[in-house]
Each structure stands twice: as structure tokens, then as C-alpha cells.
């Protein structure tokens, strides 16, 4: 007979939560870097670059994260590129996030009035200076609420990487439940842990939204 829930299981869950946080951070940081490049490509002056970036976004947005994960982990494994689950998971999340963030940020950059760019260009600033000093600071305000909203989604989506054998929070809860079979207690605790991670992000997003709306008047 299985024994009851004890401290060791709780520690195990917290370890899983730690991996969830780490995976989310990997997704945020590398997805953010990739997303910035995708955004730059989408607003490039060169049409071919814009098109390639667009195809990338369309493909990634049209494929479930789970499939990307399988392709990266198992697909590349068969091709002889075997990698530890953490690297595979990080890579898949980066591919996924960079497409979505790239598109969110492109929209934000293009939401900055064209006249701002025009005025800056008329002051003899280079294209890069116009972007850095005039457009991006204004685009960041516009981009913050949808970006944080997307990050909440990503944090929850990291549960999918359990399928490649990665023991993050969801998988840890599953493992414990297989031993002691107390699904309400175990998954309830896991749910509370996810909530404890996501709610502050949501709250922060709402505060930012309010602040930015006031700023816009």
C-alpha cells in the first residue's frame, strides 16, 4: 500500500518547480533574444529577409509546441545530434517564443507613429539611432502588457517538456501521484505552485497596463 504525502514529496515538487522556473527563464531570455532578431528581420529594408522571417513566424505559430519539442529532441536525435533534455527543451522553447515575441514586438514597433521616425530621420540620425533612441523606447511601452501576457502562457507551456523525460513541476507531480495516488492533493499543490509563479506576472502586467494608459492620457 502506498504511504501518505510527506516532506520528501514536497521537496521533490519544489525541485520540479525549480526546473519549471529555469525552463521559463531559458525560454524568456533566449526567446527574447531570438524574438528581437525576428522583429529586426520583419522590419528589415530587404524584402527577402522580411519574407523569410514571416515564413518562420507562420510555420512556428502554426505548429504545436509539442511537435516542435518532438522534432528537436527525437528528430535531431535520429540525425545523430543527440542532446540532453534540458538543451532540447530550451531550444524548442526558444524557437517557439522567438516567433511569437518577434511578431508581438513587430506590431509594437509599427504602432509607434511614422511621424516620429520621420522627425528623427530629418535630424540626420542613422536608421539604427532612430530605432534605438526614438522608436524602441516608445515601442517597449506598447509591447509590455502583451509580452508579459505571453510569458505567463509560456510558463504554463513548460509542462509539455515532461514528454521528453524532463522532470519539471508537472512531471514531478505525476511521479509522486503514481506512487501514492492522491491526485487531488498532489495536482492541487502543483496547481497552487503554478499559480504562485503566474499570478505575480499577471498582476505586474495589469499594473503596467494601468500605468502606461495613464501615461498616454
Amino acid at each position: 500500500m502506498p504511504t501518505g504525502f510527506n516532506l520528501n514529496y514536497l521537496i521533490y515538487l519544489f525541485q520540479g518547480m525549480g526546473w519549471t522556473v529555469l525552463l521559463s527563464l531559458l525560454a524568456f531570455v533566449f526567446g527574447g533574444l531570438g524574438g528581437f532578431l525576428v522583429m529586426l528581420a520583419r522590419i528589415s529594408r530587404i524584402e527577402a529577409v522580411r519574407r523569410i522571417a514571416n515564413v518562420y513566424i507562420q510555420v512556428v505559430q502554426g505548429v504545436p509546441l509539442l511537435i516542435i519539442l518532438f522534432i528537436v529532441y527525437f528528430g535531431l536525435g535520429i540525425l545523430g545530434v543527440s542532446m540532453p533534455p534540458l538543451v532540447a527543451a530550451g531550444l524548442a522553447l526558444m524557437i517557439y517564443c522567438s516567433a511569437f515575441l518577434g511578431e508581438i514586438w513587430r506590431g509594437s514597433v509599427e504602432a509607434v507613429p511614422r511621424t516620429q521616425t520621420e522627425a528623427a530621420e530629418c535630424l540626420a540620425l542613422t536608421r539604427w539611432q532612430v530605432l534605438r533612441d526614438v522608436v524602441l523606447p516608445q515601442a517597449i511601452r506598447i509591447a509590455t502588457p502583451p509580452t508579459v501576457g505571453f510569458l505567463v502562457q509560456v510558463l504554463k507551456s513548460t509542462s509539455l517538456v515532461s514528454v521528453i523525460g524532463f522532470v519539471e513541476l508537472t512531471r514531478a507531480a505525476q511521479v509522486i501521484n503514481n506512487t501514492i495516488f492522491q491526485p487531488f492533493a498532489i495536482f492541487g499543490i502543483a496547481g497552487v505552485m503554478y499559480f504562485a509563479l503566474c499570478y505575480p506576472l499577471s498582476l505586474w502586467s495589469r499594473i503596467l497596463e494601468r500605468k502606461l494608459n495613464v501615461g498616454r492620457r
Partner: protein
Amino acid sequence: MSVAVKLEDVHKSFGAVEVLKGVSFEVAPGEVVAIIGRSGSGKSTALRCINRLEKVQSGVIEVCERQVNDAKLDLRALRQDVGIVFQSYNLFPHLTIAENIMLAPRRVKHITRAAGRALALEKLAQVGLEEKIDAYPEQLSGGQQQRVAIARSLAMSPRVMLFDEVTSALDPHLTGEVLRVMETLAKGGMTMIVVTHEMGFARRAADRVIYMHMGTVWESGSADILTNPQTPELQDFLANEL
């Protein structure tokens, strides 16, 4: 430099619509030229062609000895020589007034932050707004924002200043304060091309008035043409303007 700005038979179309149908005029250094005309007469487009905000289909545009309609044009060099002020001010809302003014001198001419601030203060004094140096654009009235926009342009020490209906968004009181700044600038010897609906300004400050109609220079001359127009179109335009 015998000619600051020269347009010769300039043609410009947006799609199938020809907006400029052979525009020619010259502006001497230190001259103040007012361009008047109805909406859609091509006056703003002509102005925007001068610093290549618009590319033209044919014709010659020469600004400070540069061929603007030349593929090899150094666009940034041109824009250091030519300042422009827009109807909608277009200040950068995330930067203070000081930062708005010193951004381009710091980035383009690589001056220090301290020198940039001193320059901002000097240019703000010129438009009478020193006390607003640390304010943000949204804290200023439209007239004040437009004066800052003028100061921002002047901070790059341009040789020619373009004004694109800069008072059209302002009420008469605020219009007055902006026009006074421009008149002072004109007296100081700045080369200015001013697209405007302010006939009073044209009369007081312009060395020459150009009346544009249907994409061409229809009539031009000293400010006298405003009281003594030669063509029926200008007579008609002036009658409606007053």
C-alpha cells in the same frame, strides 16, 4: 553659395496622381520665402521634396550645392544642412525637452552631455522657453511644443529651415507666439521656406511669396502680390483666405 535652394521643373506623382507638374523656384541665402496656396496645390509636397522626405520623378533639386535627386546623395549630410518643422510638432514624447534638443547633436556631432545641455539651453532661450528644459512634451501647450520643435531643429545649425504649416494645429493666440519666434529667426538672416496659411506672416516676414496652384508656381513676387494679385486664381484664393 549664390543659391540656397533651387527647384527646376520638378515633377512628382503619387501613383497616378501628379502632384507637382513642373515646379521651379530659387531661394537665395538669407531669403525668407512663403509658399501659399490651397490644400492639394502641392505646396507641402514641394517642401518635403527639398529634404527628400519625398522622392521626385524628374527635375533638378539643388540644396546647398547638393543634388537632392541624385542616387549618390549623402542623405544625412543633406539633413544636417536642412532643418524641418512639422505641423504636428513630432517631439519625442519619452524624452525631456533638453533630451529632445540634444539627441541629434549628441549622436550626429558627438558632443558631450554637458555641451548638449548648454546647447539646449541656448536654443530654448532663442524661443523663450528656458524654464521648460526639464519638462516632458505632454506638459507643454501646442505653441510651446512647436517652439521646442523649432529649437530642436536649430540645434543642428542648419543652413536652411523648412516650415510645413507649423501653426495650422494652433489657436490664434498660440499661433502668434510661434510666428514671433519665426519672425525673429527671419530677421536673424536664416534662410527659410515657409508653407503657411498665415497671410499676415507672409506679408510681414517674407521677402518673396510663391503662390502654388494645381501643382505649379502660379504667381510669385514680393509680398505686394498679396495686396495686388495679378492672376484671377490668386485673387480668388486671397478673397477666400480673409
